């Protein structure tokens, strides 16, 4: 299907010699929701930047039906939406509404269509009444929701989020998880918030030192304390995977919406 990721032997080193990706093989199918777990410096963000050709390494990478490096990056960026970790990096326009409109306008859509998409995207993250505010007047949780809206408005077939729950208080975090859970799209969530991964994603990929070291059912992966420990990860004390309902959950069939 068109919104899958196929990465084979993806390698990337930063100019200062630090290895970001060291032969990543990853295959994500249409409609899947996958958590990318891993300690700091594992290459999670590097991988994410590759999905939009903001960094390009060696190996082959096919995203949403396009070969990264060969096909047009504009098409790629229209199909793959990145939500950056710090919403202050993502929200650079003077008002929320203009920021959400930035992507659709770059896609060359007509004004009524842009207005419509802005309204729907803000509605999806429950920020409709804040359209005319400046990003710096919003709380972190609100800014993060707007950042998600800026990408939703481009109607990408694949949504990639970098640490969506970082620095959020528990209640804001729960609201964000609920917001994400309602979004019906192929989704890659880069995080080291393991309970979030367990709540939202059926499948998880564990990245460490630029390689995929585990790939499978999220609950099985998170129950393997030895594996997690070997890669500087652990579940919060007192958190029980059994408290979550088992997969498959009743969520709208993702295949219904993607183009």
């Amino acid at each position: 299907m068109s919104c899958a990721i196929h990465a084979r032997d993806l390698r990337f080193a930063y100019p200062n010699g630090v290895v970001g990706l060291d032969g990543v093989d990853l295959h994500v199918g249409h409609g899947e929701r996958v958590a990318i777990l891993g300690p700091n410096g594992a290459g999670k963000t590097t991988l994410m930047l590759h999905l939009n050709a903001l960094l390009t390494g060696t190996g082959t990478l096919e995203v949403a039906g396009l070969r990264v490096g060969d096909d047009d990056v504009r098409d790629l960026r229209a199909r793959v939406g990145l939500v950056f970790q710090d919403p202050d990096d993502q929200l650079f326009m003077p008002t929320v509404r203009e920021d959400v409109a930035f992507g659709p306008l770059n896609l060359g859509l007509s004004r009524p269509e842009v207005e419509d998409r802005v309204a729907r995207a803000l509605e999806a993250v429950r920020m409709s009444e804040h359209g005319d505010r400046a990003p710096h007047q919003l709380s972190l949780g609100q800014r993060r929701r707007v950042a998600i809206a800026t990408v939703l408005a481009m109607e990408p077939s694949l949504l990639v989020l970098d640490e969506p729950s970082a620095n959020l208080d528990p209640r804001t975090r729960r609201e964000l998880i609920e917001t994400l859970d309602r979004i019906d799209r192929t989704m890659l969530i880069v995080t080291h918030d393991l309970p979030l991964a367990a709540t939202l994603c059926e499948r998880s990929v564990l990245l460490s030192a630029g390689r995929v070291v585990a790939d499978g059912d999220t609950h099985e992966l998170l129950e393997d304390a030895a594996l997690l420990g070997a890669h500087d990860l652990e579940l919060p004390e007192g958190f029980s995977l059994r408290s979550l309902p088992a997969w498959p959950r009743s969520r709208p069939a993702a295949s219904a919406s993607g183009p």
Partner: protein
Amino acid sequence: MRPDVAGDPRSPIHRLDPRAKLLGLTGITLVAVTTPLHAWPAYVACAAALLTIASAARVTPATLWRRARLVLPLVLFVGVFVPFVREGDPVALGPLTVSEQGLQTFATVSAKAIIGTLSAVLLGATTSFPDVLHALERLKTPKLLVLIAAFMYRYLFTILDEVARMRAALAARGYAPRHALQAQALGRVATALFLRSYERGERVHQAMLARGWRETMPRLDTLAFARADALFLAALATALLTARALA
């Protein structure tokens, strides 16, 4: 209402096209700075125009004063020395002796400064900053300058927050400089701030590319120059240019 806008947002002035306000208020400033002292009725006309605009927009004198006092004292401070240093016919001013020509220069400089500052304050009070940027862009200001101003507006507060956090972090560890040598910590703060801002710039650029940035700022809203805008500019031009020509 946006916090940077004051007065009644439904007033005829607030609803004018930002381009009309920008041109009109810049026009008032230009007339004031090009008017010599003996043509003082032109200053009166400028002041009257500003007062009319302010009252139509229901911007209170208190608001005008609160915003003008950030700029005005600096300008007047520079001007206040002129009567003492300028050579000319001496005039006794209590115990002080100043020159008459110097006093005249001070009066003109002050009038120009006050009118210029009030024009800018009124523009800011009746037009949101994004609208001013939009107007500048449509009036063919170089795109790069408009972009720089837009990013400055967006990130100023973010950077100020960072400064406040760094200052708090210094203070929390007992930093209280007593002499100049201890100020080097402030230099490190400035360095760190520069590097953080630089890195943020790179991340913002990536985020812009990820959303299809095409080297120009796309605009959602269009500006509409209506009859009211033309009338506003025509009335202003007639009043000011007549006063300037007759004076």
